[in-house]
């Protein structure tokens, strides 16, 4: 118990002294996860809107696939990306393995289905509500999509935050394609796994605390936004 308490003390010490190694790991984690989130939103939101508003052959199968992909095992994604990016793989010539870019690719693959599937549900409900008015006004399809994305923005921000939560807490894929290399691809989750296995609990705990604070902040932000939007009947 004493060791546990001293580990906490050391963890807070690292945090309050803004330890350089710790800050580097936090910064890289945020850079990788936020970039993956941005790319996922750029792909997932239009895809979700497309599936929400269009009726086409195979749509039901696509819906099942999108929902199933939300539960993609990170290690499997990591393995597939590894195979593609490894020297012998089809994209080996790009020399991306064990770089932050490879980690971004893996996380993008993991969270794009989440963004697409959750946004599809939100946008489909909104489209159901608006569709008759849109047809009455003869709203062109691109304007329809833009209006749905704009009017659904508060709910979609919650979706994005869910995607961010998944990516920042993910360890399986990034450790395979990033390699957990110090000062290059070490992020919070992989560092926690490594430091715990080494018995360096203070750093692991400090990183764990930061992860918890980020998770809490993300959820608080989502809550506040939903509350504000509901208050003004925009959600």
């Amino acid at each position, binding site marked *: 118990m004493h060791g546990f308490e001293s580990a906490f003390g050391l963890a807070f010490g690292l945090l309050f002294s803004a330890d350089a190694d710790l800050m580097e790991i936090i910064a890289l984690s945020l850079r990788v996860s936020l970039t993956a989130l941005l790319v996922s939103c750029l792909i997932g939101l239009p895809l979700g809107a497309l599936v929400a508003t269009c009726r086409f052959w195979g749509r039901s199968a696509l819906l099942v696939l999108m929902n199933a992909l939300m539960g993609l095992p990170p290690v499997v994604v990591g393995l597939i990306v590894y195979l593609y990016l490894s020297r012998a793989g089809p994209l080996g010539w790009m020399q991306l393995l064990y770089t932050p870019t490879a980690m971004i690719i893996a996380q993008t693959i993991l969270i794009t289905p989440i963004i697409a599937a959750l946004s599809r549900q939100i946008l489909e409900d909104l489209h159901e*509500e608006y569709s008759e008015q849109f*047809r009455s006004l003869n709203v062109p399809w691109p304007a329809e999509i833009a209006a749905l994305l704009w009017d659904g923005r508060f709910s979609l921000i919650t979706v994005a935050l869910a995607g961010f939560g998944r990516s920042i807490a993910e360890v399986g894929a990034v450790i395979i394609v990033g390699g957990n290399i110090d000062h290059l691809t070490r992020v919070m989750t992989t560092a926690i796994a490594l430091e715990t296995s080494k018995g360096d609990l203070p750093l692991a705990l400090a990183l764990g605390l930061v992860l918890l604070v980020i998770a809490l902040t993300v959820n608080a932000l989502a809550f506040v936004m939903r509350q504000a939007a509901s208050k003004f009947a*925009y959600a």
Partner: protein
Amino acid sequence: MSTVLPLRVEDLTLILGGEKLIDGLSLTMAEPGISVIMGFNGAGKSLFLRLLHGLVPQTSGSIHWAGEGNSENMRLRQAMVFQSPILLRRSVAANIDFALKVRGLGSVRRRDELLELVGLSHMLERPARLLSGGEQQRLALARALSCRPEVLFLDEPTANLDPASVALIEDTLKGAAADGMKIIFVTHDVGQARRMGAEIVFLHQGKLEEQSPASTFFTRPVSRVSQAYLAGRIVV
């Protein structure tokens, strides 16, 4: 003056789920002004309005506006106000701006004039969904009018509204009709139909039961079903 008249509907039929909801309906509307569609619940009034506006495709039959079939191009010359207003999750002003932008008619002045007309000019930035029922319906009417339609459809636009909102909407519609707009609206309110209608189209079980000038319909209804409706009797 409306250039989409006459409206000719021939043998219009709509079958949904194996049920004939509109049954071989034929009529002509040649005069501008206000035509009121009446009938018992389930008579097909709202469906008929949606068919005329092109929101629901007919199973058979035809709809022609001044000889032109019901197309997307024709819908650009029409607008509709639904019984439950469908408002965007935006401010009052943004709801009108959206319609103006989509129709390529954007102008702040036009928006402000319309909101003034329906008594909402002091609520520009208020979230549309926080308005009262009457205010929401007036906003929906202003948005429809912003499209400068030649034909305006309204599906029970004043159902459950307070008398002040009803009067404002009626006055706005009378003004639009006086400017040459063709207005076709559904109502169950006999008093309102008397006040507003130049002609009454009475539907029963998806069929045209009677089409008469309002003065005739309310004094000497021809059809037995119309007589029962006006007398407040239920017809099975």
